[in-house]
């Protein structure tokens, strides 16, 4: 059996010998055009001089990064101090994205487990139901959420009609509403990867653990979680990263009162600020942070692979 495999791979090698470089071309073209070019443009723009009312002047400048890290007062001529404004905006985004990830995991894991342990057609139906809302554009779903939770919306009307509350619960334009929007927007990104992991998990392991007198909690902690960990980590990344850059939920549900990173960047291009290098610099800082987290994850995975 093993010999057969080796033979086959040898014949493959000779068939495509010398073509390797050309076979790689489509992949390189895609990476070059969709990844390297845009990111390189951003990187270069972040080091250029800003042109008044948008655009750039082709002169090297560190002004964008200086603006991010140093505060020189309202008129720009005070002695430089540390600028807390943007750090605060980043911290708010990380906090919101972290909470959204936590709640998605809390709800997503049992959901994924439930679906993966259904049988036959049932499983497909549940998966199908999870994906249905995502056939609709995110903007429309966010606005619908706004309709649901507003002071005069169906949720409050129903609660008041049922006598549970006498005054509407004020949800719209709060941080909680932003949180709800992020949670709702990205929940399936948590459910689907965990589902894929759980589906490959052999339930006999849980039974074996029970036979060996493990409590349910111990089984979850020492048997199930390690087995489905790749799915959980993938889900967390897929929720956390887009939540960090989200601007629809903060704008529409949070009332745009506080910048998150996404809306701060948008303002540099679409608002009065017209400061393209600064927008590019904030994007680069965000990108670097995400890369650090992902590199850390990849290293962890690599270490585990080595064991």
């Amino acid at each position, binding site marked *: 059996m093993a010999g057969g495999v080796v033979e086959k791979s040898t014949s493959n090698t000779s068939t495509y010998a010398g073509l390797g470089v050309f076979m790689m071309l489509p992949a390189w073209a895609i990476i070059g055009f969709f990844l390297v070019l845009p990111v390189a443009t951003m990187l270069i723009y972040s080091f250029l001089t800003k042109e*008044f*009312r*948008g*655009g750039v002047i082709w002169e090297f400048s560190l002004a964008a990064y200086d603006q991010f890290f140093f505060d020189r007062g*309202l*008129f*720009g001529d005070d002695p430089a101090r540390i600028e807390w*404004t943007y750090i*605060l*905006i980043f911290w708010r985004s990380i906090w919101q994205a972290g909470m959204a990830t936590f709640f998605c995991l809390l709800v997503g894991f049992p959901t994924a487990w439930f679906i993966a342990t259904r049988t036959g057609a049932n499983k497909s139906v549940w998966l199908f139901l999870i994906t249905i809302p995502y056939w609709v554009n995110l903007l429309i779903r966010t606005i619908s959420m706004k309709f649901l939770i*507003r*002071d*005069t919306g169906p949720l409050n009307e129903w609660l008041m009609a049922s006598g549970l509350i006498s005054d509407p619960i004020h949800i*719209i*334009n709060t941080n909680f509403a932003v949180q709800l929007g992020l949670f709702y927007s990205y929940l399936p990104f948590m459910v689907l990867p965990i589902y894929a992991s759980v589906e490959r998990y052999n339930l006999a392991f849980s039974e074996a653990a029970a036979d060996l007198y493990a409590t349910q909690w111990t089984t979850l902690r020492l048997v199930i979680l390690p087995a489905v960990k790749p799915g959980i980590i993938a889900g967390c990344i897929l929720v956390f990263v887009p939540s960090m850059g989200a601007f629809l939920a903060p*704008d*529409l549900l949070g*009332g*745009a*009162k*506080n*910048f998150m990173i996404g809306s*701060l960047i948008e*303002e540099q*291009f*679409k*608002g*009065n*600020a*017209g*400061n393209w290098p600064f927008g590019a610099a904030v994007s680069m800082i965000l990108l670097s942070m995400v890369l650090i987290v992902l590199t850390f994850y990849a290293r962890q995975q690599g270490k585990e692979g080595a064991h």
Partner: protein
Amino acid sequence: MKNYLKLGASALALTLAASAVHADGKLSIYHWFEYIPQEVLDKFSAEHGVEVTMDTFDSNEAMLASLKAGKLGSYDVAVPGDYMVEIMAGEGMLDTFEPSELSNFGNIQAQWMDVSFDPGRKSSIPYQWGSTSFSVNRDVYSGDINTTDIIFNPPAELSGKINVLDSQGEVMALASMHLGIPQCSSDRDQLKALNALLQSAKPHWASFGSDTAKDVLVSGDVAVGMIWNGFSAKAREEGANVEYAFPKQGYVVWMDNVVLLKDAPNRDNALKFMNFLLEPENAAAITNYAQYTAGVDGVTAHLTDAVKNAPELNPPAGASGQFIMACSQEVQAVYDKIWTDLKK
């Protein structure tokens, strides 16, 4: 084989001919959202045999950014606000035309001919004009609303129920009028006062939103909303008991203009379209839809009574508005800082 070749060649020739005719009859518009009725576009298409395509934007600044990022040369006309016409002209984004190229040029109202942002109307024609202030839900508040205190120093029953436009220019202009300082002032004490005013007003505000300005008033999410006069009229028609204010400290006046863009792919059709919009009947159709005011003579006869008598379109005597000014680079830098601090 030869036959196929022939067939192919004639098909190719046909396609080329067809596309040549097509290219003759195209017009590409870059316009605000919800600002022109489809019937008006259809009418122009039918009258001139021109295929019209339209993209929309939601702020002057967004339009400028998009044109700067490489869209200039793909649109024929755009519809910037007053101060933005001046900025675009300064950036070299506008083409000019001679009055003789538009047979309806004489229909432009005298007061809108020699405007500061395009003296003599060399690149633009009036589209609609109106004002920006705020509307108050009369079920919630019955006191005097014709003061900017409603936004910047509101009575207790309105605090926390205010939406302001998510637009730096309009908020800064109204705040300057509230303080009685000139727009784009470079005086440091005045700028500090402006900053302090916005910081002290923000706790009273529920949200920032421009494209949601009408919706939040109609739904009752807020009781006060900064808004454009035509949008307020629409909110009233949709059943909200709102009254539009003409504050004694002043309010923002604006005029949107159709401009001929530089490198327009269909310059002739662009001029035909501009001429078409100066026809009183067509200008009136847009006014009836958008509920602002046309800058064209002879429109009144074609207006619906609802629009003619709308309180939002008829400022009381003594109220006065100001155009938004385009600030210098130094002042704009301070404005940006104030705005970021406000929303951090």
